[in-house]
């Protein structure tokens, strides 16, 4: 395979994973915001920090507010890591290496891009968030399914998986990083119920059911182990 093709496949999948991950972070952020009595717009700063997009955000906005944070993470044209930017770049990369992908995979990526681009047009209201996030997750699943179901297990496939897992590892590491250095009110709170609730919410964004089956109802140490 051409070196450039390997590169294109790697980035297609890495950027798709990035978009999915961002959508899960937003979902988590929303959940924390809605279910905790004393939560504030500041939560959204933590979400953006986890996604490593807060520094750029601060260049354009003075305050952290839910509306602007959401817009930033979903589709702001100046945010290279927004969901819209990621999925647009993913699809662009896929277009370049289309001949290395099966028709099913290409159509899954392109179809998802067209759907998501459409959903993200115009002003996003908070009540629209649910369908947007669900569409993104389903799209990710569709691409994953088409990849699993139709791609040969060869070098091309390996580069696709490489892209997915490097991005996932990167994102998981960030979550852990932010969780302990940012989210918890103080070091004394480690191991308390606040700690656990926060972890639980984060895990929801990742793979909660998997965790419960593996570890049952345990503490942060197990959660960390699971994530690693």
């Amino acid at each position, binding site marked *: *395979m*051409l*070196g*450039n*093709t*390997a590169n294109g496949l790697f980035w297609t999948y890495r950027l798709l994973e990035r978009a999915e991950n961002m959508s899960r972070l937003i979902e988590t952020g929303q959940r924390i915001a809605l279910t905790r009595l004393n939560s504030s717009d500041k939560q959204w700063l933590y979400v953006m920090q986890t996604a490593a997009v807060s520094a750029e955000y601060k260049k354009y906005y003075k305050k952290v507010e839910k509306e602007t944070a959401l817009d930033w993470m979903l589709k702001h044209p100046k945010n290279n890591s927004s969901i819209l930017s990621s999925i647009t770049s993913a699809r*662009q990369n896929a*277009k*370049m290496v*289309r*001949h290395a992908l099966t028709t099913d995979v*290409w*159509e899954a990526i*392109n*179809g998802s891009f*067209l759907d998501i681009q459409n959903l993200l047009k115009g002003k996003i209201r908070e009540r629209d968030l649910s369908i947007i996030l669900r569409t993104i997750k389903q799209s990710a699943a569709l691409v994953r399914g088409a990849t699993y179901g139709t791609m040969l297990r060869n*070098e091309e496939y390996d580069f696709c998986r490489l892209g997915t897992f490097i991005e996932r590892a990167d994102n998981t590491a960030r979550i852990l990083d932010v969780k302990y250095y940012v989210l918890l009110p103080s070091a004394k709170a480690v191991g308390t119920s606040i700690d656990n609730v926060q972890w639980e919410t984060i895990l929801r964004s990742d793979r909660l059911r998997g965790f419960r089956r593996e570890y049952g109802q345990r503490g942060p140490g197990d959660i960390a182990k699971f994530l690693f």
Partner: protein
Amino acid sequence: MKAGTVFDEMWADGSSIRRPYKNIKTWLDGEERNSLKAKRRDANDLFRLTGITFNVYGSEEGEERLIPFDIVPRVITSNEWTKICKGLEQRVRAINAFLYDIYHDQEIVKAGVLPLEMLKNNPAFLLQMMGVNPPGQIYTHISGVDIIRTAENEFYVLEDNVRTPSGVSYMLENRETMLQMFPELFTKNRVQPIQNYPQELLYSLKHTLPETAENKPTVCLLTPGLYNSAYFEHAFLADQMGIELVQGNDLKVVDGFLAMRTTQGHRKVDVVYKRLDDEFLDPLNFNEKSSLGVPGLFDVYRKGRVTIANAPGTGIADDKAMYSFMPEIVQFYSGEFPLLQNVPTWRCAIKDQLNYVLDNIHKLVIKQVHGSGGYGMMIGPTATKKDIANFRRKLIATPQDYIAQPTLSLSTVPIFTNKGFAPRHVDLRPFVQMSPEKINIVPGGLTRVAMSKGSLVVNSSQGGGTKDTWVLEN
């Protein structure tokens, strides 16, 4: 529909349906307008999903547009097609022989049939190609010969496209779309299949090898990249043929051969199906500013170590001034009368002919010799006074840059509009594949249709659409 002046392929003189379209008419009569509208939407969705979009040069974001697709097929009978094919084969063989000749001994010039001026100072004549022997002596591996019809049995060649003819992906996808949306049509009509085009092209390329090719020859498709308006077709064809899609920086000259940079190291390339202009092929031999090509590729070609399809330098046969010599060219190399007629053409470079053109400018179509895509042309009968004055000035200033032709009434075929069916002008681009072994012509080709009422401009870059083209079995 102006009865008597325009030949409609479905209605002919207006009284009864022509036989090839009888089944189609029955089908259309049985379909509800809303259901057809829904199908048209489905077709557009399918095209978007597959990614058959078209980047328009000069538009702001290089936006992606769909080329309009019309659901009413254009039908050609098996007999009509056989006649067309004979003419195409004769013409393409003659063009290929012509190219060999002008880049070697130039017998046609010595015989006084073609003036030397046509080659001298013509930017499309590549001096670098003098004396070069392409593998298999094939220059025109793929040709797109544009044909128009003006009456039941009157066909004309409008233009020869032998550089990088495009449109084959639309031909294939249109058929695919019709098969998916209206399968019942294909049980009632016996339409010759076209899906083998990519396999046949690959076969053709694999049988036009340089002497240095080994057992399993490597073929690749060279594209200028994502922002080229025909990129979809490049990717599509590479995919269908099972060959690598490469850009200039994926290729390199290594030890005197052309190679691809792969994850397993350098791999020798035997055939390059190039979809970029000659000028950009090799900065060491052509335009030094090009970053789209491969430095030294042409040296490898000159040494006979790689096939380039189509060969560099074929543009000389592509231009509109050379077109006016085609009847003589066909006759010179085949020893026969041309089976396919040329449209009568006036060469403005010649004083008498220029005068005629200036006197009759409002009746004629004026075209730039080195133009393409339907740009830089003027259609007399529909032009404004301002356009005509403009062109008059241009003709007087640089007459050698223009040719003129009578305004021919292209045949029409109905399209499905929001208000029902209406006739629109069409042309036809069959695709001719050539290898030392044989000439292969896929049944039909691309039918381009002018979507606006009365318009004669079918080019997609100016809003033209396409139809599925059927050649019926006997």
